[in-house]
């Protein structure tokens, strides 16, 4: 039952990000929530919310980078996959990542890379953690 739920979550995450990644974004456009506005979150998987995305496209080679903040309360996200290559930075809080068979405690300022469609598990040991996510679409 737990496995089935995790698989469902993974699929949801994949298609959520796929939808985000496929959005057409003007070159070098940036999306910023004005002060006081509600940012508008999306549920990536239960336990993990994504804030609004901002993206840039490089005209020279078609590469696109999308940035957004992920927010999670106390708890565990067993598996999440990204439809693009991802660079993640822990901005606040303390999380444990499970990636490629390695479990690692992360502190604010730590970066790690996740390959396209690679599974990563996240566990938050405090009340809140904020992770910056960069999705890299290199056109391949």
């Amino acid at each position, binding site marked *: 039952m737990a496995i089935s739920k995790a698989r469902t979550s993974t699929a949801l995450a994949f298609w959520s990000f796929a939808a985000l990644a496929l959005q057409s974004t003007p070159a070098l456009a940036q999306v910023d929530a004005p*002060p*006081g506005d*509600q*940012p508008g*979150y999306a*549920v990536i998987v*239960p*336990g*993990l*919310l994504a804030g609004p995305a901002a993206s840039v496209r490089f005209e020279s080679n078609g590469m696109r980078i999308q940035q957004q*903040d992920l*927010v*999670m*309360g*106390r*708890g565990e996200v067993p598996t999440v996959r990204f439809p693009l290559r991802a660079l993640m930075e822990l*901005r*606040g*809080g*303390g999380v444990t990542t499970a990636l490629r068979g390695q479990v690692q*405690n992360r*502190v*604010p*300022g730590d970066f790690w890379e996740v390959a396209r469609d690679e599974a990563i598990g996240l566990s*938050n*040991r*405090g*009340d*809140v*953690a*904020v992770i910056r996510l960069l999705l890299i679409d290199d056109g391949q």
Partner: protein
Amino acid sequence: MTRFLSCEVLLAAVLALTGCASWRGYGHDEGHTSWQRHEFVLDTSSASTLDFQPPSATRWEFVASDAFTASPAVFDNTVYIGSLNGTFYAIWASGPAAGTIRWQYPPVTAPVPPDACGTTVAPLLIASGSGNPSGPGIASSAAIAEDVAHHEWAVIFGAPDPNSNQGDGRLWALDAKSGQCIWKSQVIAPTVGSSKIGYSSPTISHRRAFVGVSAKNPDNPITIGRVFAIDLATGAVDAAFGAPDFGVVSSDPPAGGGVWSSPAVAPDGSVVVTTGNSCHASLPDCSSSLPAVDRTLSMVKLDRHTGSPIWQAQPVDINWDFDPDWAASPSVARTSCGVLSLAVQKDGWLHALDVGGMTPSSDPACSYPGHNLKCPAWTFPSVASLPFQDDGHGDNMDTSFHRLIHPGALAGDHYYVATGGLDVAANAPNPFTHSRFIVTGRLYKLDVCADDAHRIHWILDKSTLNQAFGSPSVANGVVYVGTLSGDFYAVDAHTDPTHRAGVICSYPTVPPGPMCAAGNFRDVDVPNVLRHLTLTGQIPGIPAVVKGQVFVATTAGHLYALAP
């Protein structure tokens, strides 16, 4: 029931007659709980009609020529408060002369010869270079002390002495009825040492006044913070207390740990203080040569006889000190889970320490090389480990440079405080540019003895209105708090469905309901606002609640008496 009510009425009458219903210093009592236990007029019903107009024997407005950054003390039908204009005021609280000056110091007419303090009419000001709004005049809130050098009641506060090196800092003791000088202490904040008594207010306990000293001009040059114990009988420094340094004492240059807050006295008589940043982030810079002994950015418990540290908590490693001063005064009191000391740090994190006994204690889990530190009983929001060793710990917490320097109010197991809350992680690592008012615009009711998952009882969120909260007080089920945009709120303190105004997600900007739950956050209550008034000036200080009146001071120099 009838018998119970009769007893309550009788108790109220006795308390009123014996003067228990007063507000005798910063944060009401020596633990700085800001909790008025003896308020019987104002409640959730009558507080909804609070106002300062039309003028009456209990409603009034007094205007000084400069800001009030101190908080009012109230005793003997008199409001005591000093202004940044260098004048200390005693204002009639109620009655036919309500809102008028009972006396002021220095007096309007020069005493001949000068009084026992050597004062004529010169205001108590630092001549130049006094830095932030803790100068140039009186930012130290007054404390009322009994039996001082044969005076029945004295009012004691920190202020510059214009007749000593252009503003050396001293404690001053004045007769509470007449304003006559009783003594001024030895110089404890010499301007030549670039020191001053800033926001620190004297706390009276065991026949002494405990007060802190900080930098004259914040961070440049940074100076060693100190706490002094002043003998109430004479105004002399209690040498036995040792005037302990809270700064860097063993490096070159020795600097840091300013005491901007007011020392609190725990039920066991020990003294608890919070200290400011180190020379790591200030001038002269010592980041390349950090000290071996370091009590900066810390909460420290001191032996009340000797000043010796019993324990120290330092949630931010000195190597990651980007100026998150611990400037809020600790609130110390007995709760159902022991004696706790609570204070929010400028980076938004709130820490609760178990005050414990007199045996020195530390925990390797919260220590790092050269530092033997105590772990907080809990931190809000909860964290995986301490000390913080990342660069998300700075000074300003919103784009208007408001800071989390305000103490909370502690009533039993409930702590009312403006704290960073769950958003502080989102604002790391650069609070200078990433935060708006989310951090400073949320007032929390926290259960200090609950587990982390049930810590929050309610949140009053004014962040979307760009309002930043000051220091709350609580009395008879009502929380009183101002904002730095001049809003005054009386808020229903209760936590139950019949008293709430709605729900809000514990994580800022996430809507309540399924989205909140999906992030592993939870919906919490929004309290009822009983009264909202717009006053003139910022309201950083603590509203004093006494006998049906609420006294509120503002940085525009307005002192209000609010009454139903």
